């Protein structure tokens, strides 16, 4: 009797998850499979006109991408961005969360909103303001540097400075999201632990290292993985600010993919880049998981 109820419940459960599974299947798995097939063809502008013109090229696209110097340049730039802005983003968002969580903080609601505002502002509007800030002649940033006696820098026009400029913009634009997650994590750490640490004579730093950081462990793992995944897909910032230039110094993998797919209409090639990017990101995430597991052990 009991078994049959369970079975019936399981069946009902299956019906409940069916709509979600169908949606995921239709809008996620099918496109992924189609994309994989596409990446094995030379689907291009001619094939958009007449699909029978597309040819099966096997791993040809992948080989060609690996031979393309622009791909390696884009990969290098993307890794530069991930490794430079990733830690920076973690530190800035954690610092902002700690400030907002401090007992002395006033007008918390206002600052929380203010810090989160860039996340929900559209990148196009943001880019117009930042292009002014970065302007070599009229920009506020160079004006401020000038006051300190530093000669003007062509932030977006100089191949050495364009990526740092994008990193600062991207961190400013996105740290608010991680900050909110950290805030939630901070509020989940029991007050008693701090009190106990305080009684044991731990100072501010001691409490931060031995109570806050371990308490935030799972949150940090989540934040670091989502940050990594997002940052590998850097696209909007360089697309609106520099279009990949100057001298391809801000060309990222996704921008490279976009150019191949939607500027030169090499859909097969673009699909192959997407799968390579997926493999790279998967590797990154697995390494991260392994590292965090070893740390907890």
């Amino acid at each position: 009797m009991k078994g049959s109820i369970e079975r019936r419940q399981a069946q009902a459960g299956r019906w409940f998850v069916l709509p979600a599974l169908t949606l995921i299947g239709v809008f996620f798995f099918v496109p992924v499979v189609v994309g994989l097939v596409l990446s094995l063809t030379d689907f291009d502008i001619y094939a958009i006109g007449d699909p029978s013109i597309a040819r099966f090229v096997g791993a040809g696209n992948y080989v060609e991408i690996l031979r393309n110097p622009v791909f390696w340049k884009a990969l290098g730039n993307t890794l530069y961005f991930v490794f430079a802005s990733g830690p920076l983003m973690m530190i800035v968002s954690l610092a902002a969360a700690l400030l907002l969580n401090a007992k002395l903080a006033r007008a918390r609601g206002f600052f929380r909103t203010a810090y989160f505002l860039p996340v929900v502002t559209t990148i196009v509007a943001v880019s117009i303001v930042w292009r002014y800030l970065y302007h070599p002649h009229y920009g506020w940033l160079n004006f401020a540097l000038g006051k300190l006696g530093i000669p003007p820098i062509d932030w977006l026009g100089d191949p050495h400075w364009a990526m740092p400029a994008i990193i600062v913009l991207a961190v400013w634009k996105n740290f608010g999201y991680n900050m909110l997650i950290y805030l939630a994590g901070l509020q989940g750490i029991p007050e008693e632990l701090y009190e106990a640490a305080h009684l044991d004579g731990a100072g501010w730093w001691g409490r931060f290292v031995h109570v806050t950081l371990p308490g935030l462990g799972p949150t940090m793992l989540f934040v670091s993985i989502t940050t990594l995944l997002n940052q590998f897909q850097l696209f909007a910032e360089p697309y609106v600010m520099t279009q990949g230039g100057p001298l391809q110094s801000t060309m990222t993998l996704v921008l490279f993919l976009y150019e191949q797919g939607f500027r030169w209409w090499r859909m097969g090639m673009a699909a192959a880049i997407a799968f390579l990017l997926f493999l790279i990101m998967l590797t990154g995430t697995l390494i991260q998981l392994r590292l965090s597991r070893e740390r907890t052990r």
Partner: protein
Amino acid sequence: MRRTGLAVLALLALFGCGGAAHDTRTTIRFWGMGREGEVVSDLARDFERENPDVHVIVQGIPWTAAHAKLLTAHVGRSLPDCFQLGNTWVAEFTALHAIDPLTPWLAASRAIDTHDQFPGVWDTNVMGGVVYGVPWYVDTRVLFYRRDLLARAGYDSIPQSWVEWRRAMEAVKRVVGKDRYAILLPANEWTQPVIFGLQNGATLLADHDTRADFEDPAFEQAFAFFLGLFRDGLAPPVTNNEIANVYQEFERGTFAMYITGPWNVGEFRNRLAPEHQSAWTTSPLPGPRGAASGISLAGGSSLVLSRAGEHKQAAWRFIEYLCRPEVQARFTHLTGDLPARPSVWADTAITKEPALAAFKTQLERVVSTPKLPEWEEIANRLQDQAEGPIRGKVPADSALARLDRDVNAMLEKRRWLLEHGKLLVERPAEARMAQR
């Protein structure tokens, strides 16, 4: 209950009839880009007054998004009945089978005079001998120059052969001195080396545009002429971004000549100080063997019919309306675009601006860039490869060899299409017939 049912029925009837009774007109959709897309609404209202049976829905799309939007609309089968298409995109949309041949429509048309056209611009719309677009407005590039600086160097106009032109540049350079230049040829533009190549008789591509031909002596010579201007300090090896404000630098005399298009006539009028307005003017481009070889690029926009459109007759009538001389004149007044029909050039909108006279002469001597979907990518590759030699970092011949190799790899698909008879191929005899 019954009353509500009746009310619903009555409402349904009302709406049902409303739609049918009010609009028996044929509705066509038109997409225009940028400023043209804005003003075409006014023209469409006038067209509707003349053609009460047709209703035109105009949608404007920004130039920056236009290309991707048109392509995705084609894939999604939602292209409008007729639309504006940059004439360098006609080849691509023909390859996509997105637009209809216009030859039968043109044969029956009295409104569009195929002789009242600039032949070079008309030719950009002809693929494999078949016409796919009608020029709406035209543009090309000419030489803008500082009359006062040329005069100080002893010239009252631009000499029309390369040798003489270069001598004039050397004279200007001697007059203006260090840190100033005779001409600005931005290192990040492909147009200048392409124009010089075409002037010198290079075809850029060969075998029905399936093979690169940049190592052809005609192109090599033109490229050497182009690079010589940088090597000898007549042109600064800089990109547009490094110049920052072209208008300011032109006013200051940082360079005395600049090859650019009609959109800059208005900009120069607005941005240069009133006392400098008499100091500049325009000239048709010089050529390697005198004026006749001084060709430039055929630009502008065309009007095309979507292949999937359901109301081609009405859409074609709208295109014919937009091409009428008096409508063209009005369009020029509204936008400042140069009219596609030479007969309209007598209109005041054009004649009151002396700097436009050179464009009229130049438009009689324009040619199309190679007509294939890959052209923009090829041109970009040329631009990338030219930057090394311009800055003196890479020898010209190795840059051209690399360019040929890259472009040949890009054109592999076209060679395959040609071998399998799937490529629309230009047949010269037919092309000439279609033009006339």
